[in-house]
């Protein structure tokens, strides 16, 4: 698009058949981001004027019609990212019962890796400093925070918030700050008090918001070793707010006490994920890895919006890459980020009901992918998804593509662990143990001997004691999850 004659639809990031409602919403979002009171980067005022102009034309049906007549035909090629869809079966089958189909979605950057600049960071470390963090954990956290501080580039913003019953800003978010002084402040952190995540998260959000900027990677890393009590709901609402302001959240839990389901849900609201740190020694490695992933961010989040189909239901969604995590099924699904060296990969399980199979072609999914792109102030045009499959009389003898097969074989293991956990939570310990025993059998046949042993050990615990060992459910969950990621990497080599 030339700057002289911009396509107003692209400027606002909407489809040409967008309703007035959608145009309005998209305009408000863009205007908030680019408002002259807020923006810092050069050229953003011009962009703001451009979206103003676009909205003026498109919000008026008469002017919109006139404008539409002057437009060249729509080019469906989305210039910034490319996406690819693989299916477990080439077609659906006319059947009198529900059937499953799996879909693997990959969204990758289209530009060459070399031409992309590395985006500046705006990161807040929100650290739990409750009494239980004392000793090794706190020492490692301090050392890593200082290491990260030293590794910053001039354009990066880094803040640190420590929380217990209340939150304290240790390092405020600012550019060109005195690093020596900040190192000293990190060193001085003392452990005391209990864990109240909401306070920490709120202070962290405030710090990130000070320098929030769509061209930065705005992210909160929450590190905790305990359960928060009573403020889970407030935290989740805060995370939802963060998602609308382009702020991502990742969780890291140390030891066995923290609530992994809560942390997963919290991070999931923004397309992030949680990680499990079983040994304080791993704090450094995981945090540095997370930082490197953030530096290579290409898009902060990909959101799948879809209209619920009457007879097709998304039953399960799991992100295989860049980091593994199951994804909550909502009308707006935060699928996760795209890294420059790791495209986003999500596996969907769809249930198709028989009543919809009278037609020859069935729409599985009708919606769009919205990519919020780092270092790109104008909205990225959404990608329209209209996924259809033919309905045949007999099943195709073709085996599923190897990529789906290998991803599914590992995901099956992860889901067996989920089932074991659900059964144990429901008090059905024999069933939980059986799931874990089955899991162990498969782990053994994949050569994962130590993990298989852990699974069997936990099966035994559940059978005899009707409880997991202290960190058992997390050990099994995060190791089977790691297996999924390992599988993706192996395949790429």
């Amino acid at each position: 698009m030339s700057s002289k004659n911009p396509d107003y639809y692209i400027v606002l990031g909407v489809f040409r058949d967008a309703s007035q409602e959608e145009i309005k919403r998209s305009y408000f979002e863009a205007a908030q981001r680019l408002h002259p009171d807020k923006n810092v980067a050069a050229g953003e005022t011009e962009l703001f004027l451009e979206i103003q102009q676009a909205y003026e034309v498109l919000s008026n049906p008469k002017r919109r019609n006139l404008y539409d007549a002057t437009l060249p035909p729509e080019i469906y090629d989305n210039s910034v990212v490319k996406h690819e869809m693989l299916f477990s079966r080439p077609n659906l089958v006319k059947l009198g019962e529900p059937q499953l189909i799996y879909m693997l979605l990959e969204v990758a950057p289209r530009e060459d890796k070399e031409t992309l600049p590395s985006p500046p960071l705006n990161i807040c470390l929100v650290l739990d400093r409750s009494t239980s963090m004392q000793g090794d954990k706190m020492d490692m956290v301090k050392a890593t925070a200082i290491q990260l501080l030293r590794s910053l580039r001039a354009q990066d913003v880094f803040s640190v918030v420590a929380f217990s019953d209340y939150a304290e800003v240790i390092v405020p978010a600012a550019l060109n700050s005195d690093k020596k002084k900040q190192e000293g402040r990190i060193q001085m952190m003392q452990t005391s008090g209990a864990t109240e995540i909401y306070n920490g998260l709120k202070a962290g959000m405030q710090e990130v918001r000070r320098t929030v900027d769509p061209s930065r990677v705005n992210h909160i890393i929450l590190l905790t070793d305990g359960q928060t009590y009573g403020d889970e709901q407030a935290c989740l609402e805060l995370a939802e707010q963060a998602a609308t302001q382009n702020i991502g959240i990742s969780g890291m839990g140390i030891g066995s006490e923290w609530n992994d389901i809560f942390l997963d849900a919290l991070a999931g609201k923004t397309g992030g994920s949680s990680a499990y740190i079983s040994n304080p020694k791993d704090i450094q490695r995981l945090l540095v890895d997370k930082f490197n992933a953030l530096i290579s961010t290409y898009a902060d989040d990909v959101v799948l919006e879809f209209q619920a189909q009457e007879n097709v239901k998304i039953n399960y969604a799991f992100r295989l890459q860049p980091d593994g995590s199951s994804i909550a099924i909502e009308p707006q699904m935060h699928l996760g980020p795209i890294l420059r060296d790791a495209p986003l990969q999500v596996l969907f399980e769809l249930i198709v009901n028989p009543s919809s199979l009278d037609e020859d072609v069935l729409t599985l999914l009708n919606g769009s992918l919205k990519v919020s792109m780092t270092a790109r102030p104008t909205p990225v045009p959404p990608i329209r998804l209209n996924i259809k499959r033919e309905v045949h009389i007999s099943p195709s003898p073709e085996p599923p593509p190897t990529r789906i097969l290998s991803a599914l074989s590992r995901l099956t293991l992860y889901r067996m662990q989920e089932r074991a956990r659900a059964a144990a939570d429901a008090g059905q310990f024999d069933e939980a143990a059986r799931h874990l025993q089955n899991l162990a059998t498969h782990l053994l046949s994949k050569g994962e001997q130590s993990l298989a042993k852990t699974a069997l050990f936990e099966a035994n615990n559940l059978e005899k004691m009707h409880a997991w060992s202290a960190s058992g459910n997390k050990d099994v969950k995060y190791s089977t999850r790691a297996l999924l990621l390992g599988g993706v990497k192996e395949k790429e080599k």
Partner: protein
Amino acid sequence: MIVCSNCKHSNMAGAVFCAECGAQLIGKDTLTTQNITTQQFERVSERIPKNDSYQPFDGGDAWASLHLLDTGQVLPLSMKNEFTMGRVSEGQPIMPDIDLSPYQAYAAGVSRLHAVIKRDGNRIIFIDLGSANGTYINGKRLTPNIEQALNHGDIIALGKLKLQILVKNL
């Protein structure tokens, strides 16, 4: 609906892996049922000496023994004149006479039914049963299903698992 051939769990049509036991349902050859007579089972593994250090060979009434070079254990062969060797794997109805799975057989690449060792008069005969990773005698690969005579002290490798044959003077 697809019924899992492993656990009989009913899965929805189109499923690729069994939701209950995790077995692969499609894109794989179907399993066939085999009948195995129970009389040929004998628990050899219970007679494994428990001590880890290598004991001087005293076969007792065994006509030969297998010395596991990695762990130093000795498995005496007695009672019958023919033994199949392999590893037991869960969910599979294959029961070799000598189960090598306690000795890292899976990691070493031993097949479930790997080879046969038998005594024929004064000769000891070894046959590879078409194993995936092959059988080597003193470094030479055997042709599957062809008899090969063994001598005292020969080194047999099932995949990467090395055994030395110790023959009692017959």
